[in-house]
């Protein structure tokens, strides 16, 4: 957290609007959890809860009738459910990237956005974990996924990437939750100390574990935080790599390729940043966080979206090249079929959303335009969903023998479960921004110029007036 000189000394921009004090940060962030929720929150919450109800009904119906209520059928045995799984896991990756990778690179601007990006990770992974769980068909046997001694004396197959997935995503969820909670402890203590009624004092007091901001504690705390960041960085790269092994280790044209791990990771970061952007812009407007989440943040995020979007575009092109270069006629056919076959509409939706739309961010005017950032973030979310759909469904729908060709049609249950998972995600997210400090207060305070022990209050005060904040 506090690891080097004041921001202006090393020529960086202000991370928050100049003149922001410790007290202002505490007030701006804490009041969201203390004041009655704005009407916008209630409208979104009721909508999200309704969709969560749809999810419950659809899953109940699925359990009652079996996976036949989905559109999956030979040859397309994996369809919406695994698309949704990969999409949700991918979205989660941006949270870890912001909280861990940018931390290790000392990108201090992350402090305004890391908390809700981490929350987003956890909720996205919850939505992701739902899908393999309900996809097993006989859900009462879902525990077969875990290496638990059982009466049949059989064990899971540790050579299967599907089992690696259980370990990778399970570890990812656990470590992300721990990382998030560790970051929350000082801020929960802030809410505890500000609380005016005993219920809040009890709940936040219990959760903050008796934190007393002791420097002897901060020392171990900062070390723990750094170690968790260092652990999460290879972890996040491993998770989507392992997810891509589900495909890459199979001998299936369109899946069996070595580019998958880096390509999946780049796509995951891309989609996750887009989701962070969507949520951030909404939270910024609804809760008036403009002083803490500034145009600088939006612009930097858009630059990352541009960079990862371009990497994803490169991967699409390279897949085509390798398909041609391999000389394998099945491999070539799968790719031509992707772009020009019955699913061409999905393929070109993907290309438009993921490759073309972020290219607008080469222009500074466009990447600092808030309505456009919101629209493109939605496009990227849609495009990345289609990427997974295209990879999964187009590779499967025309098997080696033309008699095994088919076309996947989603059923209402498929659609209801997907929409419901969005409802679950937003329900959790809205509860989070209502009851938990959505910006990491202690971390944000530590990057103010005033946080340095070598800071001279009056000089800097004048300096602020001489140079008012600009976006850049």
């Amino acid at each position, binding site marked *: *957290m*506090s*690891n080097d000189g004041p921001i202006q000394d090393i020529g960086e921009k202000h991370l928050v609007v100049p003149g922001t*004090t*410790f*007290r202002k940060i*505490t007030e701006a962030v804490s009041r969201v959890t203390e004041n009655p929720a704005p009407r916008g929150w209630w409208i979104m919450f009721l909508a999200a809860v309704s969709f969560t109800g749809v999810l419950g009904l659809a899953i109940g119906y699925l359990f009652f009738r079996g996976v036949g209520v989905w559109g999956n059928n030979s040859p397309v045995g994996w369809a919406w459910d695994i698309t949704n799984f990969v999409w949700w896991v991918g979205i989660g990756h941006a949270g870890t990237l912001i909280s861990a990778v940018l931390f290790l690179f000392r990108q201090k601007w992350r402090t305004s956005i890391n908390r809700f990006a981490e929350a987003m990770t956890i909720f996205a992974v919850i939505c992701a974990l739902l899908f393999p769980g309900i996809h097993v068909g006989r859900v009462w046997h879902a525990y077969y996924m875990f*290496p638990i001694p059982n009466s049949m*004396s*059989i*064990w*899971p*197959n*540790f*050579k*299967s*990437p599907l*089992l*690696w997935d259980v*370990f*990778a995503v*399970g*570890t990812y969820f*656990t*470590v992300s939750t*721990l*990382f998030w909670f560790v970051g929350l402890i*000082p801020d929960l203590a802030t809410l*505890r*100390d500000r609380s005016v009624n005993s219920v809040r004092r009890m709940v936040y*007091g219990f959760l903050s*574990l*008796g*934190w*007393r*901001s*002791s*420097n*002897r504690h*901060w*020392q*171990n*705390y900062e*070390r*723990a935080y750094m*170690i*968790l960041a260092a*652990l999460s960085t290879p*972890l996040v790269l*491993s998770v989507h790599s392992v997810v891509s092994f589900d495909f890459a280790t199979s001998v299936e044209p369109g899946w069996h390729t070595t580019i998958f791990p880096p390509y999946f990771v780049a796509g995951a970061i891309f989609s996750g940043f887009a989701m962070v952007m969507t949520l951030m812009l909404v939270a910024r407007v609804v809760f008036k966080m403009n002083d803490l989440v500034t145009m600088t943040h939006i612009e930097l995020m858009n630059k990352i979206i541009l960079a990862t979007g371009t990497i994803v575009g490169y991967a699409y092109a390279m897949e085509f090249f390798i398909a041609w270069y391999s000389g394998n006629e099945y491999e070539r056919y799968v790719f031509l079929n992707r772009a020009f076959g019955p699913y061409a509409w999905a393929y070109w939706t993907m290309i438009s959303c993921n490759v073309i739309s972020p290219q607008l961010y080469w222009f500074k005017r466009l990447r600092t335009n808030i309505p456009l950032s919101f629209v493109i973030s939605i496009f990227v979310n849609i495009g990345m969903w289609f990427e997974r759909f295209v990879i999964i469904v187009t590779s499967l729908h025309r098997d080696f023998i033309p008699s095994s060709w088919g076309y996947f049609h989603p059923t209402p249950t498929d659609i209801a479960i997907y929409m419901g998972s969005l409802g679950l995600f937003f329900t959790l997210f809205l509860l989070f921004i209502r009851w938990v400090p959505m910006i990491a*207060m*202690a*971390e944000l*305070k*530590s990057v103010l110029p005033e*946080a*340095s*022990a*070598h*800071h001279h209050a009056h000089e800097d005060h004048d300096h602020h007036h001489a140079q008012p904040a600009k976006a850049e």
Partner: protein
Amino acid sequence: MADVHNIPLTRVGPEGASPALVLAEYDTPAACMHAAEKVRDAGYTHFDVHTPFPVHGMDKAMGLKDSRLGWIVATMAVLGFSTAVGLITWANVISYPFVVGGKPPFSIPSYAPVCFELTVLFSAFGAVFGMLGLNKLPRHNHPIFESDRFRAVTDDKFFVSVECADPKYDETLTRTLLESTKPNHIEIVEDNEP
């Protein structure tokens, strides 16, 4: 030193309790760090600094040794890796060997993902619970919570606390030492607990 006696002093805590610690409040990290240096140089060992966020350089100002957390995490990493190797070997080589896809039961490449994940998982548990263990948290009943002014520590105030259990502690001398660091306020926190 003319204004030393102008610094207000209050006593807080339950009736009839004995002093547990002395608490001095500051407005800036710099003032707090200078105070920590003075207390350290005066030879105190049972003292602490409380800041809303970690202040760079404070460990040195307090004379703290490096955190031992890394050793806990390293131990847990080894344990996690060994657990994974043991689990896979027991499950797929000894207890239930089963040939899938023509691969031998003992196949090192297929060990990699699960070994990596369990190493990370155990290390993360080591980092979080090791940190809480070293900090002796959770602890909800510390005497310092008797002070109402101390609630600002999670907002924008900085504190130095000296425990009465410190061998160097003396009510007058410690108070004079803290007054010389020009705090806003000094409190003697009393509590029934040791």
